[in-house]
């Protein structure tokens, strides 16, 4: 199963632009960018992502709250989520994984390999899920 549709939530416009170039221009994904949680919730009404890339620290609704809200939507109940954060405390990383994230990517990230990285995480996630299902 190939990853194609990604929803990116990030309040910083510069990073949104870089990620868009990295994932669309370099990696060729189908991407929708949002500037915050509320934007994301409204976007998924017409875009059902296969993976959500979520910035952890955002003003207003932060990453965890956004995830919480997105999970309430039927189309996002099981969508794999990857957090992106500039905070590198282990405890925080663990907090995101505990909340259901499949991975945490540290900022600054490598724009050239970000797409590959997400594709790999996505594949690994579903392989693991398949194994669990088959068992």
């Amino acid at each position: 199963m190939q990853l194609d549709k990604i929803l990116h939530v990030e309040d910083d416009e510069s990073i949104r632009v870089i990620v868009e170039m990295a994932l669309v221009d370099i990696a060729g994904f189908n991407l929708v960018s949002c500037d915050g949680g509320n934007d994301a919730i409204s976007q998924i009404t017409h875009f059902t992502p296969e993976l959500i890339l979520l910035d952890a620290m955002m003003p207003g609704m932060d990453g965890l709250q956004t995830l919480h809200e997105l999970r309430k939507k039927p189309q996002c109940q099981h969508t794999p989520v990857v957090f992106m954060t500039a905070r590198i405390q282990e405890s925080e990383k663990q907090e995101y994984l505990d909340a259901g994230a499949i991975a945490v990517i540290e900022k600054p990230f490598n724009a050239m390999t970000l797409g590959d990285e997400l594709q790999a995480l996505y594949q690994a996630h579903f392989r693991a899920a398949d194994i669990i299902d088959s068992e």
Partner: protein
Amino acid sequence: MQPPLVPQTEPSRLKALQQTGLLDTESEQRFDRLTHLAQLCLGTEIVLVSLVDSHRQWFKSKQGLDACETSRDISFCGHTILGEGIFEVSDAKADSRFADNPLVVSAPNIRFYAGVPLVSNAENIGTLCFIDSKPRKFTDKERQIAIEFGKSIEQEIQDRLQEHAHEKLAASEQMYRSVLEGTRIGTWQWNVQTGETVLNKRWAQIMGYTLEELEPISVETWLNLLHPDDLTDSDAQLENHLNGKTDFFDIKCRMKHKDGHYVWVHDRGKVVSYTADGKPLVMYGTHADITEQTLNDLALQQSRDELYKLTQQLPGVVYQYQSWPDGRSAFPYASAGIEDIYGVTPESILTDASDAFAKIYHEDLPALVESIEQSIEHLSVWELEYRVTSKDNSFKWLSGSATPERMPDGSTLWHGYIQDITQTKDYYLKLEELNQDLNVAQQSLDLASEQAQIGYWHASLKLGTLWWSPMVYQIFGLDEQDFVPSDSMFKSVIHPDDIDRVEQSQQQALVTGIHNVIHRIIRPSGEVRWVHGLGLIVAEDKNPDLIMVGSLQDITDRMKLQKVKDDFISTVSHELRTPLTSINGALTLLQSGKIATLPAKAQKLMDIASSNCKQLSRLINDLLDIEKLAAGKMLFDIKPLQVAPLLQRALSDHQPYADLHNISLVLQQDPQINDVCVYVDEHRLLQVLTNFLSNAVKFSPQAGSVTLSATLMDSEIEIAVQDQGSGIPEDFKSKIFEKFSQADASSSKAKGGTGLGLALCKELTEAMHGSIGYDSSTEQGARFYVRLPLTN
């Protein structure tokens, strides 16, 4: 009147008279019967046995006269004893020698006198005399009769003497027998020439026999019973006596009793007669049983010997000290140890204690005297520590103790013991000093503990015992009186979320000897506090009970500050990284040439910007790592890991980077490394090795090589990275592991370092209980290593 003359032999005559023992004794029938018979035979009015004493004549027997004595100078008998035959006066009135004699002119009016001298021991001691108041003359026959009566009287005197001697002898023998019986002493008699021997019943009894049982008795009887060991001494004693060298044969020896045991006897004898040619003939002697006395003496001697040996063994002196009311004092007994204690001999103070007192250190003398007086007054035990002065003028500390006893003469006698306690005293003084130091140290520690809010504790991992200082109770909010510390109690105050972490540290301490953990506790009031527990197991060879000592610090305030700092760093790092993410991303995309194609100069500028951006990113990462380490917030996932795969991974991770710089990477490892494990956090050890390797690659010349090696040491493994660079500059060596240090200002620009890498490596290595170091020479390049403890 003519008084009688005194004979020339008067002294010996008087002595002979005395020896008859007749003077002033009662009248006796044996004499009275004879004088009465003589009176009847010769028909005279008076018959007397008259003994002529020095100034009188005393009548032992008298017939026809009442007087018992008259003066010698008027006596007729005084004349009779001057001659040998009968002295006869026919008519005293007609004899000028006696005519006016008072005995003639008045009662008894002597006219006739005839006296027969009485002889004893060849001296005329008196007379048998015949007196009449009418003149008369004896016929020859009458004279003969008178002389015969005189002889009879003489015979009676001799018989009487012998009878008396016999009586005395009998009494003396009786007394002797009684004495022998009383003292239970045996007797013996030995004819030296014939060997004939006579023993008495008691002699035999002492040896357990009857006399019959000992028959035939000879000198052999004696020799057979004598203890063989005493034979020589006995022979020597006997020979000495028989030769006249000693007055007595005297020996104490052992003789065999009938029952088989030996009895101690005291034999004493003397030669009492000799042969005509002067050889010893007969010996008499006594034989006394002295077993009990000898055994007592031996026991006494043995106990004296034992006492002596015992006192010899004692380091001090055992003594008796006596003090009299008149001020005299002495040591009636002092064991040899007195020489060591006082430097005087026991003899020198036997009757006067002055020599010993002269040795007392003058400052201590008044107290000594006072203590003795107190002991005398209350009869209380004397005890004192005092000093004496030695020959070299140094002090010696003594400790004495003695029990007093009041003697009948009013003196006081102590029985006691004095010992040299100089060394003990020195130790004691030093101990006191140490104790004071310890008190000061303890007070300082308590003060510091209170100021710093650090409690301390120790636990025996073997015995399961635990002790807390008061501050630990205070930190836990517990009352010292109400709780006995235990491991389970300690666990009960730990925050439930932190228990695993504390237990992990405890487990780790069993391996590494170090316990180091920061965790929360909950006080009984519900208040949550942060504490930092540190512990160390004392070296095992000196620590059989596995004692762990440690501290516990309340770091709640520090943790609050830390949180503020962490939040700040977190925020700053976020704020820094967010723009950095954009810059880095933009540059990466541009550099890739996939977004747009840039002119060559612009591309070069992009490279510069990108390189600096990466460095800034590393700087922030290193800085945050260092801060985390300092705050103790970096979590280490420490577990046993095989070394070989780790090295392989470090090498392959760096291969692209090395290729970029045209450097070859070489791995060198001991063959045994394959079996070796270290106790580390894999990620952090790789971080250290990455740092070493990237430094080595950076500082190596083109086409050089970098060697990663692993060597086994005693209980460690050394992992090292060797480059072929120019080595570490001398002036940089001292600060190589300091933060923000680089060899020179230009190198960071040239090689792209942050100056934090090695400082971080050091912190990480030490946090994993390892050590870090380097070797460097300008010819061979630099070699950095870490040494890590091996797991068992």
